[in-house]
């Protein structure tokens, strides 16, 4: 079993957290498994980027609800990652000799998997996070990392100044060397946000992970501990500017917006580029059907849907049914949800396998995005207000209160 081949660069994807800003959406699935764009999951983007960049070893670090993710990734075949020399591996925490421990932070998660990484004897390790929508050639970033001889290269992207204080901000000198890193600064000095994409020279990273693990005061986090320590030691940190589409989909609002971006003409984010395909596990479904009395405006509709009502400026995932006289507007309807006759859904996200029964009204024409959580069956005539989040427990509670 020691016939593993050396890899120049491998990727570690931090799929970990519970993504509480996505509210009920991540109650039963891990954030990277959240659906996006009619047929994708968030994790399809980093995985497809890796496949297209020729990075063919991807470790997915997760400890929370890995079942759905494990099943979705399977053998890795949809991303051309079902390889003998490489592939995609889901890596939950495990027991060594007599003890075992959960991942304590992003840096600790990598540290616990040093032996996984060392199997491939890599020169560089690409660290990714699992909650962004973007298409990026990591190979170009790697070339820049090698050329500048950096210890770390961090991908950065200008964000509007008004939101800069909600990102990790990089202050750089004229040669793109990072001189300061501020996590969510109140008064940002730059608008270059970290994209959560890092390339580390592996021996450097390894020594800092070892050091970090020995520090009981550390939160074992890249942003809070490891990168500040490297900056403090005056290592060579380079910023790599990326100017393509990049969206953090860590909140209900931003997830909804990113879906709407796909409908713009020309689309703000183009999914159908043969030179940079985005792969996904395909459901086994026939084409969708548009009925005699349906009306579709400016929407994206995936396979297996049956549409007999009105759909405007919306994204329908595969297997969705919209019955006659139902209206779906400015909304995202996730796989296998059913919008029954006469129901109205506006500015909302309806998650997988929901039923919006006849006469329900979900969301409002102007207002915050409403959310119906996975597997929820809204009873007839039910109302979900703008900005409200409802799941099966809420429905049961409402029923109980009504009695």
């Amino acid at each position: 079993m020691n016939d593993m081949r050396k890899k120049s660069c491998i990727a570690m994807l931090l799929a970990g957290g519970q993504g509480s800003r996505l509210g009920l959406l991540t109650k039963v699935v891990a954030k990277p498994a959240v659906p996006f764009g009619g047929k994708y999951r968030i994790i399809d983007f980093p995985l497809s980027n890796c496949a297209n960049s020729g990075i063919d070893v991807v470790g997915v670090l997760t400890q929370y609800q890995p079942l759905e993710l494990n099943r979705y990734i399977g053998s890795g075949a949809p991303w051309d990652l079902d390889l003998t020399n490489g592939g995609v591996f889901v890596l939950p925490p495990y027991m060594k000799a007599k003890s075992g421990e959960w991942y304590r932070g992003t840096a600790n998660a990598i540290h616990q998997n040093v032996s996984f990484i060392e199997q491939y004897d890599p020169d560089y390790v690409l660290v990714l996070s699992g909650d962004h929508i973007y298409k990026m050639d990591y190979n170009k970033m790697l070339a820049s990392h090698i050329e500048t001889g950096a210890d770390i290269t961090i991908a950065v992207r200008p964000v509007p100044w008004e939101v800069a204080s909600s990102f990790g901000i990089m202050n750089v000198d004229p040669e793109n060397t990072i001189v300061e890193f501020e996590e969510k600064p109140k008064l940002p000095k730059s608008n270059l946000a970290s994209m959560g994409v890092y390339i580390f020279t592996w021996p450097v990273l390894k020594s800092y992970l070892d050091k970090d693990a020995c520090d009981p005061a550390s939160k074992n986090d890249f942003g809070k501990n490891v990168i500040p320590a490297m900056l403090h030691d005056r290592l060579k940190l380079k910023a790599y500017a990326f100017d393509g589409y990049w969206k953090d989909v860590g909140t209900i609002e931003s997830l909804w917006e990113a879906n709407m971006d796909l409908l713009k003409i020309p689309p703000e984010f183009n999914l159908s580029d043969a030179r940079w395909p985005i792969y996904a596990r395909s459901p086994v479904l026939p084409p969708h059907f548009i009925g005699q009395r349906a009306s579709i405006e400016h929407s994206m509709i995936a396979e297996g849907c049956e549409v007999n009502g009105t759909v405007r400026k919306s994204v329908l995932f595969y297997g969705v049914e919209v019955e006659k006289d139902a209206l779906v507007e400015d909304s995202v309807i996730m796989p296998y949800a059913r919008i029954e006759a006469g129901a109205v859904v506006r500015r909302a996200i309806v998650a997988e396998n929901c039923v919006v029964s006849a006469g329900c009204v979900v969301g409002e024409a102007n207002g915050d995005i409403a959310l119906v959580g996975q597997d929820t069956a809204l009873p007839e005539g039910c109302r979900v207000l703008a900005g409200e989040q409802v799941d099966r427990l809420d429905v049961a509670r409402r029923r109980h209160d009504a009695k």
Partner: protein
Amino acid sequence: MKDIMGIIFTTKDDLSLRELTSARAVAALPVAGRYRIVDFVLSNLVNSGARNVGVIMQRNYHSLMDHLGSGKEWDLHTRNNGLFILPPFLTQENGGEYAGVLDGLRANFDYLRRSRQELAIVTGSNMVFNMSFEPMIRQHEKTGADITMLYTKVRASNMELGSAQKHAHAFLNVAEDGRVVDMEVNPNAASYNNISMNVLLVKRTLLIHLVDGATAHGAHDLDRDLLQPSIKCCSLKVYGYEFDGYCRPVETIRGYFRCNMDLLDLGVRRELFKTMPVYTKIRDEVPAIYRSGNSVKNSLVADGCVIEGSVENCVLFRGVRIGRGSSVKNSIIMQDSNIEEFVELENVILDKAVTIRSHGRLIGQMQYPIVIGKNVTL
């Protein structure tokens, strides 16, 4: 689930399907927006537990081979068992075509002998239906039949007017207890309304024995030279198993056209796609985009389409574009075809990657749709 093997017999190019089969086997004909005809019978076999499926090829099999690939989409890409492509010229006895099914089976004795399954299902490849063979297998074992033949009642959905003259169909007289007591092959007027679906279930070793005996006597035709005599002289216990769901053979352009149009019916869609999953080759396509100005009614639309014009009673395959101001009615538009602006199409079948330039106009008749071959620009 019983471990069975499947043998799919593909036919040579068929003149009744005109341009559509000039470069492909009927089994490889695109249907229902994202499938090939063979997907249905292949998925039926896999869904019924077959882990070993051989496809007997004849001439023009490249597009079929390309579609089936390593069998991955059907979970048949395994090293032991799996999908076996059996092209004719692998044997020295043949020159690219078989005179009949019996010859095709005879030429693949090596494969049949090497297989380990007890039961084999031998089936044609031009029938669109969705069915588990498991109850048929249970009946076969219960009755102790030598051969069980699948049949269905003659209905609008499984017969085409006049097709009995053109294509060999067999009709069965099935007794109360399920035993087949008479068989008519290709009659002008059939005496029975049970039509054979060209699917038969038989012990693998018995199949080898029967084919060996028949071909040694110079026989070619499975129905006429093997089944009919066996039923007549009661030398084999032949039983029938009735399938009462939707099934449509694709033998003529009209049959092909109707088969696609059938899918605009909710009941047919449910039968064909909700009974058991139908697998096909995967293509990474974005969901369909509906731009403003579109008007789509009563149509089946696959991923990758971009629609700005109006579409009614159509089947659009993957990656089709319908431009602004265009109107497409009662038509079947295959993969990657591009309808530019202000085009008018009615009763048309466009093969793959056809381009219709702006302001083009093609009006066919429902009974005789216009067919435009692959890669043509008009």
